[in-house]
């Protein structure tokens, strides 16, 4: 993956076969916030994006699995609209 901009925010979606899905989940969890069943998102630095991709590549089988990255420059340049309750709180736990 070649980056032409400094992306600092990412959405990651995946479709992974059952026997590998847990491995992928664990890797994503290190870098991003778990948002929905197979969606992660959050702030991430450009170098970490490359690291994450490298780690994922080792685990997945490219014949059957599919991971897609949606990258943003920052978290302010998209509009989010959602239904239902979201428990996320960035700063405080």
């Amino acid at each position: 993956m070649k980056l032409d901009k400094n992306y600092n925010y990412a959405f990651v979606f995946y479709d992974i076969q059952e026997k590998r899905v847990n491995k992928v989940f664990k890797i994503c969890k290190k870098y991003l916030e778990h948002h929905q069943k197979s969606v992660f998102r959050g702030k991430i630095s450009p170098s970490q994006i490359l690291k994450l991709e490298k780690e994922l590549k080792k685990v997945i089988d490219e014949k059957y699995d599919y991971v897609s990255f949606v990258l943003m420059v920052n978290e302010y340049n998209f509009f989010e609209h959602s239904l239902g309750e979201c428990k996320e709180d960035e700063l405080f736990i």
Partner: protein
Amino acid sequence: MSSSTRYITSMGELSRKDNSLIFRNDKGHKYIPIEGVKVIYCLNEVSINSKLLDFLARNKIIVHFFNYYGYYSGTFYPKEAYISGKVTIAQVKKFEENRLEIAKAIVKGIGINIYEVLYHYYKHGYKELKPLLNWLNKETGIILNKLDNIKQVLYLEGSIWKRFYETFPIYLPEDFMFNKRVKRPPDNPMNALISFGNSMLYTKVISQLYKTHLNQGISYLHEPFESRFSLSLDISEVFKPVIVYKTIFELVNNKKIQVNKHFEKQLNYCLLNENGRKIFIENFEKRLESSFEHSKLKRKVTYNTAIKLEGYKLIKNLVEGEKFIPFNLKEKI
């Protein structure tokens, strides 16, 4: 807001899970991505085990602990990542030979930054501030040049702060009046805010200086025998007016923090309650993450980074002999 700092405000257990972090309590659990986190604040009872500490150390994450009353109790400071004997020796040498130079520079920096903060109120019609502004602008510099021992410098520092506190009745609402600065424990809302703000700033400086080669035990203005990271106390001094007091004034004057809502008052002490603390931290973070145009670097810099740059400046002074000018709100250096 920077996601590299996490605040844990509820009771629970922080532990390691699959090379990442998890925070559990009776309400449920939450994963914290380890990559990107640099500092964790524990503002409530948090259980931790040594397995976690080892893992945090490996990822160079600093953890600050505060006790139930919101007092700073200590820092988990992982094995130093940046050690330089050269810088440590230079620090000691400077302390022995020319401690006053740095101490004076810091006190001067405090004066300038207080002047800047107060000038804002002077401009908005509080003309009573005029005598103090004149004193800060003209006289402190002259007095400072004449001083030749550290006690006198500390005395001048004390009187700058004292005169600063005396201006509070001019521009702050009446219920936030206070007679004098009281610590351990603070006895009224204003003192509580100042104490909490100062210890938050102190931890921020520790986290930033961790990224430099400086030894945090060797200080110039404060005595380096206080078994604390006294260099962080030195560096935080000039940032107090800019970050702590500006945040407090904003919160108090805009009624975001109120005496009857956000404080717990008991027999002889007064503390911020949980909600008050949250409001304070949120605004404090916002101010630290706000940026200004740095006049030397010619680019935008956050106040948080400015703290780190302060460390670099000190190293430059120690190793290369460049003049040490502390952070200056007016010139944005």
